[in-house]
């Protein structure tokens, strides 16, 4: 019997606002526990909710890049439930009139292109984080994430394969990160995906029993969780080994299986009602157009610009435009050093390999673009050679040195005095007379050895091309 997997996705994306949804607390990731909190996001009484306008604007941006229909007058609503990470006892979300509906995104997989349709996107506040501490036998609460604004993007059950899910998430990440909506980092939790999954016999139109899988924090984990869970459903249907129930299951990445979270979900009644403190928000065409006009270049426009206008290779352009962060580094560096091929080369070959050594991916690389450009400038005007430049990049990465100053202070400038190079060559030719003889006798490899000896004596500070040609001249002369 052939089975088909049917999936719908709920993707939570934290919005890139400076401050939280209803207070002035910093909304950035990575602070000490409970560093970014105030009476409002701690749920204390007396602070009416006042909405962060920037969050609404990023919500409009998310609606635009997903081809959604924006709600002319949206409302915020309250969802009531008790949980220690929810300090007010309610979550402010959009239930009755979310910011947009009926969007779509085109994805591309090995099967070709297809559209994934979206049910809706709504803005809501995030909850805090519980940390279970076994040493003291208690749960600790970190409220930093409380009230950080996010959008939940709810798809229709359009997905059939894990590949489609991964392609969709990749596409969403590119669309949203380039629009400045979110940095979409799964590892840091700024992009989280819950998968609603069921299986049915091919040809059947009725949906099977659905489970929701949570707690996947990478694309790899999502693909693995989908494969595991759909197989579990198929096994259950084929062998009757277990009865499928509608439930939420937690993915355990170490074990590679999903586990029931044993929550009585049917009993939950969230008592939604319109938030009486937040007035309905009208989103008129002017506001939408303002947001549309201020949207930054999309990943696809940028790819076109890099390949067509700047003449970069498709391979390089794909890497640069595959990450908002790399693309920002590219633009930032180009401002100081206007040579796209050189900049891309430095990013892809040098910067990414240093980052990789530090276990950092494309989205986590950080570099001061001005200093990065200065290194390229120093090579370009022949002040330093490439090897020294690479060392400088590492020093910037590790110690944030100032490259121009460092070159000056450590006298790393290239030896441009040809007399000195020629004298050094003469010295090497004398010292290595055996090698010189063997080279002349036809052992070509020894030429590079001799170049290396010269460079060593010059402390690596000469232009290897010049050394090459002067050495060749010197050996020729020696012959005559």
């Amino acid at each position, binding site marked *: 019997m052939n089975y088909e997997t049917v999936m719908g996705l709920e993707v939570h994306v934290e919005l890139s606002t400076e401050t939280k949804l209803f207070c002035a607390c910093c909304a950035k990731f990575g602070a000490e526990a409970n560093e970014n909190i105030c009476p409002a996001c701690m*749920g204390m009484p007396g602070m009416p909710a*006042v909405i962060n306008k920037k969050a609404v604007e990023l919500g409009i941006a998310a609606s635009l890049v997903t081809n959604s229909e924006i709600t002319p007058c949206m409302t915020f609503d309250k969802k009531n439930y*008790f949980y220690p990470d929810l300090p007010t006892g309610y979550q402010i979300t959009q239930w009755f009139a979310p910011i947009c509906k009926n969007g779509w995104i085109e994805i591309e997989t090995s099967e070709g292109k297809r559209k994934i349709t979206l049910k809706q996107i709504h803005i809501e506040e995030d909850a805090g984080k519980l940390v279970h501490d076994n040493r003291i036998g208690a749960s600790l609460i970190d409220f930093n994430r409380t009230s950080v604004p996010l959008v939940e993007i709810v798809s229709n059950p359009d997905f059939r394969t894990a590949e489609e899910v991964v392609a969709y998430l990749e596409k969403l990440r590119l669309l949203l990160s380039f629009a400045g909506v979110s940095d979409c980092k799964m590892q840091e939790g700024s992009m989280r995906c819950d998968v609603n999954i069921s299986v049915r016999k091919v040809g059947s139109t009725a949906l099977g029993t659905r489970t929701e899988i949570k707690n996947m924090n990478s694309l790899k984990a999502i693909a693995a969780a989908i494969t595991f869970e759909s197989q579990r459903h198929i096994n259950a249907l084929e062998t009757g080994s277990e009865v499928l129930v509608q439930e939420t299951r937690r993915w355990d990445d170490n074990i590679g299986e999903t586990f029931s979270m044993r929550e009585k979900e049917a009993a939950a009644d969230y*008592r*939604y*009602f319109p938030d*009486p403190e937040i007035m309905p928000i009208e989103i008129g065409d002017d506001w939408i157009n303002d947001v549309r006009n201020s949207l930054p270049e999309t990943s696809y426009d940028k790819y076109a610009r890099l390949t067509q206008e700047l003449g970069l290779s498709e391979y390089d352009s794909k890497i640069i435009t595959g990450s908002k962060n790399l693309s920002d580094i590219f633009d930032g560096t180009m401002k100081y050093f206007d040579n796209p091929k050189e900049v891309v080369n430095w990013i892809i070959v040098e910067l990414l390999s240093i980052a990789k050594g530090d276990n950092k991916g494309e989205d986590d690389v950080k570099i001061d673009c001005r200093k990065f450009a200065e290194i390229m400038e120093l090579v370009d005007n022949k002040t330093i050679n490439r090897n020294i430049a690479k060392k400088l990049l590492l020093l910037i990465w590790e110690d944030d040195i100032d490259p121009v100053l460092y070159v000056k202070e450590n006298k790393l400038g290239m030896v441009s005095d040809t007399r000195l190079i020629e004298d050094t060559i003469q010295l090497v030719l004398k010292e290595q007379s055996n090698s010189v003889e063997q080279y002349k006798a036809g052992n070509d490899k020894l030429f590079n050895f001799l170049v290396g000896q010269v460079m060593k004596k010059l402390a690596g500070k000469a232009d290897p091309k010049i050394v090459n040609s002067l050495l060749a001249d010197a050996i020729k002369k020696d012959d005559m």
Partner: protein
Amino acid sequence: MSYFIEDYGVRGHNAVALEDSIMQKGKQVTANSKILEGFVSPFNAAVAERLINAQFTVAGKTSMNEFGIPSLLNGQTEVLGAVKVVSDGVVDYALCNDIFGQYRKQAAENSCCYIHPTYGTVSRFGIIPLASSMDRIGVVCKNISDGFNVLSKIAGNDFRDGAMYPEKTYKYEISDKRIRIGIPKAVTQKDELFDENVTKTLGECFQTVDMELENFDVYKQVVYILSCAEISNNISRYDGVKFGYRTPAYRGVNELYINTRSEGFGTDVKLTALMGAMVLSQENYVPYYEKAMKVRRLIKNSLRFDNYDVIALPCSIGNDPYENLSLYALSALAGLPSVTFKHNGHNIQLVGNVKREDLLLTAWEVCRHEL
């Protein structure tokens, strides 16, 4: 009986008493609930801040019903602290939050006045929230004209409250307008004395207009359903996890919630929370909450302030507190300003249009001089 639950000893014409739901930085604030025991406010309420900036001082904190919810079962037996301090002449003014009308009613009954301003003209920042769509700080005073002077110091837009009108300040001045008073006959007839005497004498000083309050019979249900829903939501933050009272005995988080809230809330609050949860539950949302919202809209739309300027209402129609709720529901539901006062032995309530407190002040002045 002591007037204050906390007395700062300040008296004189610039002393104002604050109900214990108005937060003052560094001072415990409990809204008379055990659940907030030990909770010290980290900031000043906007109204407290503005009073102090206007050279007023806080005399002390007055007692109140728990969270400001009067007992609908037993009625209000004791005189509330904010009314008592003014009627006994301890201070000239007290500020409090009045949704259900208990302050408006008692002020008139105890020879004081009450000014209930337009919703959204006085900041709710730093007020222990009750029903957010109705919460409003008002003034208990000896004299409406002086009361408006205090109100002018605390009213005006505050960016920390998102449901406010944009005006930065309000001046409450007597108007030249010849005021037309709307008399909802069907309502005033419920209080025979009021109907006979007050409407007659009002007719001598003002042009009176017969009018109808559509859906008056369900006012109390609508205000009760909506306020219970909002209150049950607003008090869900008191769970024993972060601040205030926490039960000494619990195993696991569910017991922490249940015991803390069972021990921390009184009967009327529990009843309100239960009613609120009931009307918001999945099966009851449409027949109760949504319907009440629709009727609220109908009530707002039914008003015809182009035919009259002020509506006159009695302050009570019998002894049933639930029935009397109807009289105060209009301003609660439509956000309208009102004043209550005693005149010639009658307790009078005047309700005006949004931001037309000036006409209430004017009407009161006319009554004072001519009635």
